[in-house]
């Protein structure tokens, strides 16, 4: 029995190739995850969510995680969302002392990250954005961990699989980390990835997939010895030693494999990668569009080339098509799964999404063709006195019952308080899941094509992210820097007294990141300008 079951409930009968399906785990699991602790009259009670059947409705989303957690959301708040799956990047979670330290790792990745009730996909690189890394070789791929660039071999990857036991594993592939790679490089990446895929699939069956590598290494060593001259290498009689006998590897047949299809911007290679990969025994496919240069239309064309050469009955994941209109175009091509990096990016910018798919729930919104923005930026001063939820009628944690207002979130941003991103993330994730829910409904009701057109007409396209920081945000950061020391005392001492300082606490702020560096540059630029 295959580890995953993908069934297409409905194929769009209209022009598009959109389809509505489910991706489910076939082996019976009954795992529990603690969701929240609530105080009751009799004390504290843990709410536990059981997951007898884990399913992702498609088209749908895997939750994007950073270091194994959905950014800003603690497990209890995260579970107010309704996504069925999550994706974890090895480069986020693998520590520098691992996989050696895996012997002490007492459980699988889902338990470690408290994600037992989700379908867990494991890939190597961050799925949200393009980050250039040094080259890959025949034996390893490069990835960016928080400890720096690190090389990951297939052997190490297999150790990860056996320890982590994800539900779905992305194939070990030679992703080209170059926006304009040459034909030779692309061909090589397709070849390598196919070879690695075959090795990976052998290992899944419990066969020694790495035997040929070891033999090749032995030969190379011998050659080196010969070349370096017989004089130095004392005549060793052990020359005939065969490659070390491999311990029969443990199969991991419960893990589904989603294979990366590659080819960069070269059409022939895309076709070759897709057709060859399709011949292998895999459960699904991944198209990583984060490293594809060119206009959105060009990228969609490249995605289409891959999809046209893949079997329609298996699920397809796309990375890098995150804005809603890109999602819709990809769904129309037959893509099934995305990730939630879009709501995350909105949140980082201080934005709350307002778009929705399909007819409005409320009648009054339909009246006028008011051109609403697809999102609002809560840094904007106009929200400072708006005691209304982010979005009327929204049922997310932040908006429900008018709990938290635009004014409050504006205040939290300006005071550099972390609850701002918690509330924005809750809202943006919720609205993103609503968007997919409505897309699924429209495919079932054969209205997808029509609603997609309406969506594009009404909400336009995502403006290019400039990387500029909101002027208010820049001002807040600037004043924060200026009075860094004072502020630390002041805000930490809300009561009338001096706060005792913990041992080993540093004065500097903890979350110093790239954004701040960028800010500094921007401020320097501002300071150079004559004041008005």
């Amino acid at each position: 029995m295959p580890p995953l079951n993908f069934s297409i409930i409905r194929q769009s009968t209209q022009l598009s190739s959109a389809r509505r399906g489910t991706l489910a785990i076939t082996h019976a699991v009954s795992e529990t995850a603690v969701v929240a602790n609530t105080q009751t009259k009799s004390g504290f009670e843990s709410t536990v969510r059981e997951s007898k059947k884990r399913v992702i409705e498609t088209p749908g989303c895997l939750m994007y995680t950073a270091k194994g957690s959905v950014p800003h959301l603690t497990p209890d708040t995260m579970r107010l969302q309704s996504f069925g799956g999550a994706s974890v990047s090895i480069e986020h979670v693998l520590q520098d002392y691992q996989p050696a330290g895996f012997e002490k790792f007492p459980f699988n990745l889902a338990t470690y990250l408290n994600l037992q009730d989700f379908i867990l996909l494991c890939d190597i690189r961050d799925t949200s954005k393009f980050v250039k890394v040094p080259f890959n070789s025949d034996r390893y791929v490069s990835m960016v961990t928080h400890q720096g660039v690190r090389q990951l071999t297939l052997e190490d990857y297999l150790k990860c699989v056996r320890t982590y036991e994800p539900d779905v594993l992305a194939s070990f592939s030679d992703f080209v980390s170059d926006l304009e790679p040459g034909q030779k490089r692309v061909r090589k990446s397709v070849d390598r990835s196919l070879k690695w895929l075959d090795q990976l699939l052998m290992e899944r069956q419990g066969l020694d997939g790495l035997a040929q590598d070891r033999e090749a290494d032995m030969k190379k060593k011998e050659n080196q010895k010969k070349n370096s001259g017989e004089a130095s290498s004392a005549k060793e009689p052990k020359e005939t030693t065969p490659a070390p006998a491999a311990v029969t590897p443990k199969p991991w047949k419960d893990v589904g494999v989603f294979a990366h299809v590659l080819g960069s911007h070269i059409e022939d290679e895309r076709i070759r990668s897709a057709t060859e990969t399709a011949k292998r025994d895999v459960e699904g496919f991944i198209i990583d569009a984060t490293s594809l240069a060119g206009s959105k239309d060009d990228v969609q064309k490249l995605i289409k080339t891959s999809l046209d050469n893949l079997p329609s009955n298996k699920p397809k994941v796309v990375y890098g098509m995150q804005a809603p209109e890109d999602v819709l175009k990809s769904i129309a091509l037959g893509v099934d799964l995305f990730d939630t990096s879009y709501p995350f990016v909105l949140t980082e910018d201080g934005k709350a999404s307002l778009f929705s798919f399909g007819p409005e729930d409320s009648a009054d919104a339909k009246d006028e063709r008011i051109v609403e923005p697809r999102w609002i930026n809560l840094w904007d001063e106009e929200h400072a006195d708006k005691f209304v939820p982010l979005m009327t009628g929204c049922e997310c944690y932040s908006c429900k019952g008018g709990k938290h207002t635009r004014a409050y979130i504006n205040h939290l941003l300006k005071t550099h308080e972390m609850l701002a991103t918690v509330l924005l993330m809750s809202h943006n994730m919720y609205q993103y899941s609503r968007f997919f829910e409505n897309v699924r409904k429209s495919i079932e009701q054969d209205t997808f094509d029509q609603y997609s057109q309406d969506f594009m007409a009404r909400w336009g396209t995502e403006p290019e992210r400039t990387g500029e920081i909101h002027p208010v945000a820049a001002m807040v950061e600037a004043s924060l820097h200026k009075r860094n020391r004072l502020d630390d005392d002041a805000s930490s001492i809300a009561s009338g007294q001096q706060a005792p300082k913990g041992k080993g606490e540093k004065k500097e702020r903890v979350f110093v990141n790239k954004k701040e560096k960028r800010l500094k540059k921007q401020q320097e630029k501002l300071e150079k300008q004559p004041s008005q």
Partner: protein
Amino acid sequence: MKSALKWDIVAKCSTTKARAAVLTLPHGPVNAPVFMPVGTQGTLKGITPDQLESTGCQIMLNNTYHLGLRPGQELLDACGGAHKFQSWNRNLLTDSGGFQMVSLLKLAEITEEGVQFESPHDGSLMLLTPEHSMSLQNSIGADIMMQLDDVVSSLTSGPRVEEAMWRSIRWLDRCIKAHKKPDTQNLFAIIQGGLDPELRKQCIEEMVKRDTPGIAIGGLSGGEEKDKFWRVVTLCTDLLPPGKPIYCMGVGYAEDLVVCVALGVDMFDCVFPTRTARFGNALTANGTLSLRQHKFKDDYRPIEEGCDCVTCKTYTRAYLYTVVTRETIGCHLISLHNTAYQLRLMRQVRDSVIEDRFPEFVRKFFKDLFVEKSAYPEWAVNALRSVNIDLMEDSP
């Protein structure tokens, strides 16, 4: 003066001055002794109001000075106060902003009229007078509001301490006069007088006459010697009327809390648990775990066995090691735990007082935290001896 609270003592320790009580405020009951987490800017470090409620928190702090700057009085009035603004339906206490004159001394000038602050945000001037502080606190709408006091660092000595003490009394009178909502908000006086017993006595004598619903001990926890600190606390609790809650400001280390409860204090606040969480420090009965340390990389235990917080139920120390100071949730998770730890400690203290086994609790608490008797802080041993608990004698 008028009071909008009820103070019912449930139990008294038969050995020490500790007491357990229920403080009923406009937004519900508060079980005392109580630790109040500090949400300076109208939020507790990334914790949602629902999460805070689930830790059993019944009262939290906001700061008048900070809320007065942002969002400002106009917006607070427009939305109907700080409870609504931050969606917190339980009790709030606001500090007057008095302490900021110490912490922001470079930006503040103190006169009889009030304190002039330079806004750190835009450099504009803000004059905080007792009347303005009351007006702001009435707009915020906290269940307990603090008088504006003239705070001097506890390391200061000489005539400035006495001046500040008398001025605090005069400012209390102005606060009482300016307080517009005594039916729904409780004004607490703050005892000043530095480390000088005579000044403290005079201050208490004068302030008790004003008959505020509750009284705070101020001007401490500023880096003074701990042996002087506890002597001032116990002097105050001896002289203050027994029928009112006593609040010791700025106290938050676990051992300080336990000792001060023994000395008769009912309420505490401190930014320490959430502040230290940002640096990856988790509080436990056996001391602080600095989760940034490499030794936790393979530690697959929760922060604290038996802890009922979300963090301990879901994540291991090994995982926290990988996210603290790197991801915001590392901070949220440890803040949640530390808040839960602090509130649980106070519940345990309270239960032990009610069951009249507080001295045993104190002994076990110090043993768990410091292990060896030689490691017990001397001031704590002295303080507890003054209320008939001898930590050094072998436990019965």
